[in-house]
């Protein structure tokens, strides 16, 4: 997954290293020759003071990375990030973060350029992706039923995600009930009830056109009466710029009082991902993110964009059409994978 982004980051890393390397070369044209001479001098020299002098001068001499050295490589990196669907403001923030991490760094000649670059990239990415979110632990440590509300714009895969998370939690040994809160879209109730039936999960549904708050309220009532562990509340897709639909969502939140609000978006979304994530977060809030259709895209920029914008952890990645195509998100592992496990 995200192999595209990984390849690009690798390339960017190499370019950055090369730029800094080139700067070092320019600063000391005969770097390597001198070093070997110095080593020779060190081993042979009778006069230790001279050897020390040489060592300090050559081997431990520090190189300061200047902004100019890496400007070109950083521009390339920004393009790389944009090509990977990282939204423009986020790409800019990341690049400036990396610049800050590199410029003015004293690099010892002995230290590899590569590790310096990797360190800067890694810390910038980790800062964005934050820590993951462990749903099973969350459920175990909270009062049941744990009520989870799913939100997002149209067609991002909320209903499928509800089914997948239902299957995942059931496998973990939790009891689950689904609330068919999408009462608007034609065929939505049929869709979620077929999923529930296949998975053997209880579903609470009303008629098409019913008040979604009422459906979800009933679902919570059911869960409380039957001591169910988790309530998964599906909702109709809505655009963040439709204030009536957003206030409907607001009402749902008031009525069912969710413990977690999960914002669902797709990995293939471009710059708009940032706009709508921010708007959902502002109006109804979001505690965690699920990114769907990650199998469609080897770039994964939306993950970084959204995480950076609303500063909330990524919970799962949807990676296919089957129920078990869902992967808990681990930022450390992802960054490690993206940077190809470089030396640290």
């Amino acid at each position, binding site marked *: 997954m995200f192999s595209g982004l990984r390849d690009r980051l690798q390339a960017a890393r190499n370019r950055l290293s090369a730029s800094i390397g080139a700067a070092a070369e320019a600063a000391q044209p005969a770097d390597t020759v001198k070093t070997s001479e110095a080593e020779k001098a060190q081993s042979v020299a009778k006069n230790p003071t001279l050897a020390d002098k040489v060592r300090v001068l050559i081997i431990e001499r520090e190189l300061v990375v200047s902004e100019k050295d890496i400007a070109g490589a950083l521009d390339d990196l920004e393009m790389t990030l944009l090509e990977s669907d990282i939204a423009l403001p986020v790409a800019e923030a990341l690049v400036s973060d990396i610049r800050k991490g590199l410029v003015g760094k004293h690099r010892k000649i002995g230290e590899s350029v590569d590790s310096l670059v990797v360190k800067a990239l890694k810390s910038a990415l980790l800062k964005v992706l934050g820590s993951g979110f462990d749903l099973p632990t969350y459920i175990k440590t909270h009062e049941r039923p744990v009520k989870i509300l799913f939100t997002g*714009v149209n*067609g991002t895969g909320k209903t499928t995600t509800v089914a997948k998370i239902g299957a995942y939690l059931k496998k973990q040994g939790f009891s689950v009930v689904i609330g068919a809160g999408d009462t608007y879209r034609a065929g939505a109730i049929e869709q979620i009830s077929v999923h529930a039936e296949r998975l053997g999960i209880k579903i609470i549904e009303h008629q098409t056109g019913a008040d979604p708050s009422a459906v979800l309220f009933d679902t919570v009532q059911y869960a409380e009466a039957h001591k169910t562990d988790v309530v998964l509340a599906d909702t109709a897709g809505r655009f963040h710029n439709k204030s009536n639909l957003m206030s409907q969502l607001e009402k749902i939140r008031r009525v069912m009082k969710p413990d977690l609000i999960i914002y669902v978006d797709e990995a293939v979304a471009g710059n708009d991902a940032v706009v709508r994530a921010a708007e959902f977060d502002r109006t109804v809030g979001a505690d965690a993110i699920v990114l769907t*259709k990650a199998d469609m895209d080897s770039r994964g920029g939306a993950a970084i964009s959204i995480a950076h914008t609303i500063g909330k952890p990524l919970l799962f990645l949807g990676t296919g059409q089957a129920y078990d195509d869902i992967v808990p998100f681990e930022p450390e592992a992802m960054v490690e994978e993206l940077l190809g496990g470089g030396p640290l």
Partner: protein
Amino acid sequence: MMDTLSASLKDALKKLAGKAVVDRAAVDELVKSLQRALLSSDVNVKLVMELSKAIRTRSLDEELPKNTNVREHVLRIVYQELVRLVYATADLKLEPQVILMAGLQGSGKTTTTAKIARYFQKKGMKVGVICADTFRPGAYDQLSTLCAKINIPCFGDPATTDARKIVREGLVATKDLEVIIVDTQGRHALEPDLIQEIIDLNVITKASHRWLVIDAALGQQASEQARRFHEAIGIDGVIITKMDGTAKGGGAMSAVAETKSGIVFIGAGETIEDLERFDANGFISRLLGMGDLQALAEKVQEAQAATEIDMDAMMKGHFTLRDMYKQLEALNKMGPLKQIMNMLPMGNMQLPEGVYDVTSTKMVRYRILMDSMTPQELDDPSIISSSRMQRIARGAGGTPEEVRELIKYYKMMHKTLKGLRGAAGGKFNMQRLMKRFSGMQ
């Protein structure tokens, strides 16, 4: 976000205004802000780079056309290059046809299928829909519910998992209908089985059109996906959906470039009527976050034409009511004066707010009055006596005072232009003209 982008674009354009030669640095700045605007709208990075290269080269290399300032010149190039990318509107004929819908999961194929059915139905065609989505639960229910609302037959079988079989049967069942739309399951290019399926469906249906449905929010992935779909079934039209959100639809632009097709429809809303034919200009304005780009480009062109007429009249030293009529007509075509003043490179000239409106309504009146004049009166206003004034006023449904005011205005214009000829060496001095204008009110 978008506001700041379009502001920086406008700033960059402003810097070009008033320059006599194309300034490399200013063009570079413009191209850079254009790049940023397009990238934030999800246009493919490579496409943006090609586009900006073309704009830069053309701006710097092409000779400045006569009567054009640098800003207009560059602006027109920007506009032309952008339009070139999306201008090809996919053809849409009201004839018997089979349309195959293709697209990624969740892009809005099913909703769009119903919307297109409604579109053809309203045009008086007999329409039928086949639901070939055998994978997603509820897909058939969704489509048949939507179709039932508009009384369009929907063929499908939720119990069957073989899309090919359904389509074969569906084609037989709908053979008396004129437009048949085949909705398919969402798929992406990395699923070989599903790609094979849609290739087969294309063969079975002998589809006249294969339309790719693209979510307006789709990012850089659009190019790649469109290319793969194009390779598989030969996409001949793109539909952008969910344009009622805040997404700019730049991905669709990449898809169009990739498939060498045009944009057929734009979906912007959840009801069945929310489908529009594509309008290149509106789309580009949205991409750049500049509401008036096309209007601007066109108006600048018209303004030039208008200036030419004036120049002719002035150079002849002969300014009749007829010339004034032409001038007012040209101004009227360009829209409210205020807008024109904002668009023309007039530097920092400021006019009081009220002046514009009064002037433009007056202009309409003047034209009506002139319509009621005889050719002789138009050619030689000096023959207009008080009885002629009476007649003109009656013909135009006005008062003789109005005609008198018109004559006064004409005399003032005449004097102004005469003065200009001497002072500015024949160059049209709009600024001074406007001063006279405002003095008149």
